[in-house]
């Protein structure tokens, strides 16, 4: 995989996450959610790329999501926690690698389906790790305890994953057109067309 192309696409998709959030945000009751374009990119790369590169790409993309997510704390500030989504994306990528041999990954609908499954696999561990962090910091009576309700976050994550899966269909179609830029090596086991 060409890492410069990956870096460019990572930059674009992270900017899409930030820039289009306002436009694409939907509110249901008290929960407001928007699609996660970085998740879509991770799933698509995981469905196409070599395993070793996919793991590192998922780690980097997850870290980017971590660095752009801010969590309010009890002392009225906001904090950034590195690691939860990095590890979550790695697990999501691992699941996608296992599932990609069972499906025709070039189809845009499959991108949406894989996004839904891998997204759930990615968000749940991230929420778990953040909840554990809150428990540890609350136990230490720290001022940096994040304001966090795990159940609300699970609902938010579920809605985000569903929304992302819907957006992944047209996005996957576009990414499929650019797959040649990434320089994915064809491999008999992956079954990529030459």
């Amino acid at each position, binding site marked *: 995989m060409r890492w410069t192309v990956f870096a460019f696409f990572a*930059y*674009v998709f*992270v*900017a*899409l996450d*930030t*820039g*289009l*959030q*306002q*436009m*694409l945000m939907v509110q249901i009751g008290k929960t407001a959610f928007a699609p996660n374009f970085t998740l879509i990119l991770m799933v698509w790369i995981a469905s196409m790329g070599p395993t*070793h590169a996919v*793991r*590192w790409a998922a*780690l980097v993309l997850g*870290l*980017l999501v*971590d*660095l*752009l997510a*801010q969590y309010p704390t009890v002392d009225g500030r906001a*904090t*950034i*926690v*590195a*690691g*939860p989504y*990095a*590890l979550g994306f*790695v697990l999501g990528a691992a699941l996608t690698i296992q599932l990609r041999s069972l499906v025709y990954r070039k189809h845009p609908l499959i991108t949406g389906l894989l996004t839904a499954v891998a997204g759930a696999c990615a968000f749940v561990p991230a929420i778990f*790790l*953040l909840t*554990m*962090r809150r428990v*540890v910091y609350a136990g230490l009576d720290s001022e*940096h305890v994040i304001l966090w309700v795990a159940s609300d976050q699970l609902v938010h994550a579920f809605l985000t994953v569903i929304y992302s899966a819907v957006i992944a269909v047209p996005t996957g179609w576009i990414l499929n057109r650019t797959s040649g830029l990434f320089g994915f090596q064809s491999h008999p086991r992956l079954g990529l067309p030459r």
Partner: protein
Amino acid sequence: MNHASPNRSFYTAAAVMLIACFLPAGFTNWLGGRLGELTIPLSAPLEKLSIAVRAVPERLDRENPEFVKLANKNKEQEVRIYNLEARAASLQRELERLQELKATDPSSRPVSAYRVAESLGKSDLFKISLGSLSGVRVGMLVYYQGYQLLGRVSAVSPRSATITPITSRAFGPVSAMVIAGDGGLETSTRCSLEPVGDGTLVGDVGRNTEDEASPAGVGQRVVYYDPDVRQLNSGPFIGVIEKVVPNDQDLRWFTITVRPESDLDDVSVVDLKIPRGSASDGGDH
């Protein structure tokens, strides 16, 4: 080819990420800030596009039926609060008035009675909702808002009483005192007023010589003077001098027209001073 090396580096990175989940966020806050700045060249135009395409949250909130419902409920609450505050102010004034009544005559207790909407024919008499069972007696003075002399009790039944207004011809002559501008007793002038029947009372005031200043002027206050009590010039208020006409035949005398401030048609509650211990066991109501 050593596959252990790439795997080891990845597992090491994953372990670092796991540890970073529980570390204080000093460095990551800084790094996140720099990453956010890096994405601005691309994300800022997209944000502007988002704002242009989609209404700002404030406008969306105003159009949101939930918000409109809450805003209307808020307005209703504001009106309720306003009305409650007005009612509280009115009750406070009523309390102060009753306390003032009580303070001026400790031998009596102030009570209020409602004007009964009962026709008494062509006369201007009216009835109130208290009677002999509440201690009302014939001859008692009736006030409006505690200070304005309204009339006199002319007939009493157990649960109601008939009031003759001070402006009614049936009331008869009214002993009064014109309060001087400086409020002093020496400069105040006694007079006798007669109800004309048109809502005013007319009387004559005089001065010793024509060179003296007029003893009465338009706007001066006129109070009730009880010769038996001989109180100072702070008796029950009758009204304000509306007109002063000099007597053509004797310039020492002036005819004054006094009009009460309160319009009888507007009066719905009257006050009386019931002597303490005069009410029956039934109590007033």
